[in-house]
């Protein structure tokens, strides 16, 4: 006959009392969700890599695309996205500190660190909106041929020219169009009058065209400024589609993370977890928040560095 201790064990097993992985239901479910989400994101990033290999000669080089930094003139490749990465890492750190304080039942510290995490999340989402804005209004402008290929304008020194420089000249014009729009007629007549201007593909080792071919290509094609789902002045339009989709999907995760963080923060303020006797909800939302940071680490590498 089984001992009473075994009997209790048996009842607990059937009653759902045992914890085979040393983890509670809520946390396990969060982990399973994160695992499936990780597979989703890796699918997106792999598809991105595939398309990038396919269109290598027209795929934009990220450091020529994201060159703005608030308050600074000229090209600042990678700086802004490095700052965004720093903000997200920082908010991940404040989240661990909140979870850590929760384990010690230190309500005041949890409140404080949760608040900082929410602030960090907001700044990140705002930064992403700023980057999208600059990506959408565009920078230098480009020529889209009749076959929908994107070509950039260069001068004899091999410098990339913006529409502003093409039309107003190197002295008067700006390296960025600053939101000024130009028509095909303006760009075409400026190009015709300057023999040294030619068109080139945007990617690594892209083909360059002669001046005559370039003028003919523009005559048959059109000018594009900025990026959207149909046109993309930076190069292959798939780049813009992937950029909007992947950073958008990640940004949506950050945004929902901020909302969930806020709900938990509000409950901390109300003392819900103090009454419950534990801060496990903070731990669960913390896992989600770290995952968002984790995904960004990969997006940062594959969109901006590689």
């Amino acid at each position: 006959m089984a001992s009473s201790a075994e009997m209790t064990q048996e009842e607990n097993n059937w009653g759902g009392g045992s914890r085979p992985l040393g983890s509670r239901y809520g946390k396990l479910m969060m982990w399973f969700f994160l695992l499936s989400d990780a597979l989703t994101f890796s699918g997106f990033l792999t598809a991105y890599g595939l398309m990038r290999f396919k269109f290598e000669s027209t795929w934009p080089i990220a450091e020529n695309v994201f060159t703005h930094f608030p308050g600074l003139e000229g090209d600042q490749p990678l700086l802004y996205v490095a700052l965004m990465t720093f903000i997200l890492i920082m908010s991940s750190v404040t989240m661990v500190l909140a979870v850590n304080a929760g384990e010690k039942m230190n309500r005041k510290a949890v409140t404080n660190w949760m608040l900082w995490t929410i602030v960090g999340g907001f700044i990140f989402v705002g930064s992403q909106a700023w980057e999208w804005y600059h990506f959408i209004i565009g920078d230098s402008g480009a020529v889209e041929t009749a076959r929908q290929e994107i070509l950039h304008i260069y001068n004899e020194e091999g410098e990339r020219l913006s529409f502003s420089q093409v039309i107003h000249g190197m002295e008067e014009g700006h390296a960025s169009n600053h939101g000024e729009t130009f028509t095909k007629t303006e760009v075409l007549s400026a190009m015709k009058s300057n023999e040294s201007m030619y068109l080139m593909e945007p990617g690594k080792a892209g083909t360059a065209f002669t001046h005559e071919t370039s003028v003919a290509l523009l005559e048959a094609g059109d000018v594009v400024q900025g990026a959207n789902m149909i046109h993309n002045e930076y190069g292959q339009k798939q780049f813009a589609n992937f950029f909007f989709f992947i950073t958008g999907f990640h940004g949506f995760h950050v945004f929902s993370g901020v909302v969930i963080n806020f709900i938990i923060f509000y409950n901390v303020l109300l003392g819900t977890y103090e009454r419950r006797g534990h801060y496990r909800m903070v731990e669960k939302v913390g896992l989600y928040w770290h995952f968002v940071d984790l995904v960004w680490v990969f997006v940062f590498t594959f969109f901006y560095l590689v």
Partner: protein
Amino acid sequence: MSDQNGTWWIWKVFWILLVITGVEVALGIIKPEFMLTQVIGTSILNILFIVLTLVKAAYIVQIFMHVKFEKKGLKYALYLPTLILIPYLTFILLTEGSYLFR
């Protein structure tokens, strides 16, 4: 649960992540000539970026997400699907995707 006291271990990971990101950004801006040598279809620099990314990811998952201190069963439940499925998916997409190039 972790048996560490205080919060020094959190800040240690923070500094590691910050330094790695700083190195990545610096290399991304400078792009040293000798690191642009092509090996297995990409440059040494890109391989270094991917390795550094995986190091960062390991720190976030192991320490911040606490997996290092979980039971063996949970560790396997999380690591095996990720480490098998993701390289498999990547491999299939990139090799079978070569049909798109025709």
